């Protein structure tokens, strides 16, 4: 069994601020991390590896420094790392990225299960995973927080409004992983990190994956970002205290003052 995990390097968005003047993200001094949802998806894949002996390949797309997250994944236990890195990928939106990753997965071949984080914390779109499934024409199970495999079937527990539902799909399938309630990311030991240096790691370009450049980059991206801005902070509200009757009376008084009621 072969599992492919799609991962992304993102700025640690808990530390990113938007420059109010230019609308751009202030990146100075902000560390890059493995997207936490992808981190969890990888850990789920490694658990399946332990249970089934599956091979786990990680695939990422990004500039050369994205090698860091691929190496982290290898240190955590992935068997093979692939980085799609080519100037022609730059500026790709979620659709073009889905195309590139699906081409890479086709090129990789023999993938039974594809696992992605539900979304990346820098864009919050949750589109890339479903986009890949769409491009490959395979079933998708989104927003999962538990996953298991039996034979050639994947079974996942997915979050829905007010509860969970359990969904099964036959291989090949794609699952996007959401974060469970209590989750502490695992980090590799020094020995695991050193050993990861020896594991297979490849950089693939547009040519490697036989992608058509017109579906990549800005040209291949239907999305246009109008502007990025930090929403203005909401004004602090007023909290009324007292008995329900007092609060209602006070509230009515304000509604009258503001001419909402007569």
């Amino acid at each position, binding site marked *: 069994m072969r599992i492919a995990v799609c991962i992304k390097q993102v700025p640690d968005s808990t530390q990113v601020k938007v420059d109010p003047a230019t609308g751009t993200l202030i990146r100075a*001094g902000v560390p890059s991390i493995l997207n936490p949802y992808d981190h969890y998806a990888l850990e789920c894949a490694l658990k399946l590896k332990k249970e089934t002996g599956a091979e786990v390949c990680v695939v990422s797309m990004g500039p050369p420094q994205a090698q860091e997250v691929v190496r982290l994944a290898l240190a955590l236990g992935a068997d093979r790392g692939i980085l799609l890195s080519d100037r022609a990928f730059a500026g790709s939106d979620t659709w073009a990225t889905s195309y590139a990753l699906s081409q890479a997965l086709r090129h990789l071949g023999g993938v039974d299960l594809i696992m992605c984080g539900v979304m990346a914390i820098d864009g919050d779109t949750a589109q890339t995973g479903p986009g890949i499934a769409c491009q490959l024409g395979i079933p998708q199970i989104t927003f999962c927080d538990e996953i298991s495999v039996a034979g050639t079937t994947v079974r996942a527990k997915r979050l829905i409004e007010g509860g969970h539902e359990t969904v099964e799909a036959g291989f090949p399938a794609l699952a996007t992983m959401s974060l469970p309630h209590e989750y502490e990311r695992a980090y590799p030991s020094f020995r695991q*990190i050193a050993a990861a240096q020896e594991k297979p790691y490849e950089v693939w370009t547009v040519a490697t994956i036989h992608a058509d450049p017109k579906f990549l980059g800005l040209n291949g991206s239907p999305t246009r970002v109008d502007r990025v801005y930090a929403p203005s902070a909401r004004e602090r509200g007023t909290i009324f205290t007292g008995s329900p009757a007092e609060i209602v009376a006070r509230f009515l008084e304000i509604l009258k003052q503001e001419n909402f009621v007569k």
Partner: protein
Amino acid sequence: MPIDTVSRNLMLDSLKKYAVRRLPYDTIRELDSANEFPADILKEMYNPDILGLHLLLIPREQGGLGGSTVDIYRVCEMLARIDLGVATSVFATFLGSDPLRVGGTPEQKEKWMRRIGEECLLVAYGATEADAGSDLINLRTRAERVEKDGKITGYKITGNKQWISNGGVADLYTVLAMAPGGPSWFLVERGTPGFEPNKHEDKHGIRLSNTAALSFDEAFVPAENLIGEKEGQGLMQAQAVFGYTRLMVAAFGLGAGEEAVETAIRYSQQRIQAGGPLSQKQGYTHKLIVPHEIKFEAARAYIDHVARRLDGDAHGLQTEGAIAKYYATEAGNKAAEDSIQALGGYGYTRDFPVEKIKRDVKITCIYEGTNEIMEMTIYRGRWQEHLKSRGQYYADLGRELEALHAQSADVGADSAALCLKALAVILEQCREQKLTRQQYTSFKLGELIAKAEVAMVFSRSAADKNYTEGVKVDRDTLKAMARVCARETALEVALEGVKLVLGGGTGSAAELTGATGLIAIEDKQRGVMNDKDFIAAKLNEVYRSK
């Protein structure tokens, strides 16, 4: 395959994440207050399934990771940022295994290095005694031969050791003792009859690190525990690694200092006084923040430069190790002091970590040879170069920096060149007037040499296409820092040098001013304030308060 930059950064990241989870400031504060060594934390840090950071010091042949000098100094810097007591405890294992690494026979290395790695042994380095600190000649601990049928079967060790890091908690001790053939290192296991560690000292700082005296009363060790299996090699084995071990203490000064100043920068963005945050006030930033950040980047450039030389084909580098230690630990100590000032009343309480860092970092100016011993070591090393080159050592380096300035005009290489040339003149004046017979003068020269060489390496590093690992500011800021460092160092070296020569000898102030190029150096001070404004603004971008 040597550990590469990506792996190194992943290791630092794992270490940092571990500390965030297991050593938050509140925990550290409690341990500090209770004067308690966190044995469980050390065991976890050594546990190969959790971190296994001690494996860096074990060669690959013996099952370790064979970390380079760069790997180890980077980890030391990160450990010091977490807690200098914990850092010291880990370092003691590194230090304790050094005599073995340098002087052990292949069989001894195979046995003991493998055990340290696999059994996660805490090691202690037992050299210091009540009357033998930096000067080990007065060593009193004795090792008497035990012979059977004319063959040496072992040694009985008798004496006392003092200020031994991990002294009360180590599993294995390397102990320096006077054997009939001269000072020698012995491996002593915990629990050896006749050997007792004493109580944990009540120290000013690094209170998470166990420090204890050791008592030996005819403690028997087998002959195979004599490191190198030859008597009299001890001092040589101790000396051989000073360049390396002092570099690690330099990284401690750097890491602890950085942590203190970054706390101050973040605080200053939130502390509003007289209508604005302290971070926007020049009287604050240019006194309490900017000078230290410049020194840290200078120290980092120097430490990294020496580490890469040691990982290359250079050996010893004792003078360079002393320069790194002197410069980085003085910088870290002063920075921690100013960070308390930067936090005002809050800084003086234990609610913020700067008060503890200040107590902790002081030790870096003392252990692995006091900074006065460093001044002497630096002076002795470079004085020989000055004499051998007939006064041209620093003049030549000055010319190299002039050439660098022609290539890269914005890294302060012109000022660094003037600085080195002034230093050459001062040294020559001291030689002609025999001023180094005055001990203060020779020590002060050690200080000036350290500062001049660090400024020189910093200018080169700011111009180098390879960016030093761990630098958080961008290239323009790094260049501005190198300019300020070179300009101010040049002025300090020239002025202090003139003061030394005129104060201790004879001569004309006007002539000396001319010969040292003091006026030209003063001319180079133009623009320093602009650079500091630029640096202060950048630091506020890089270290934003959460």
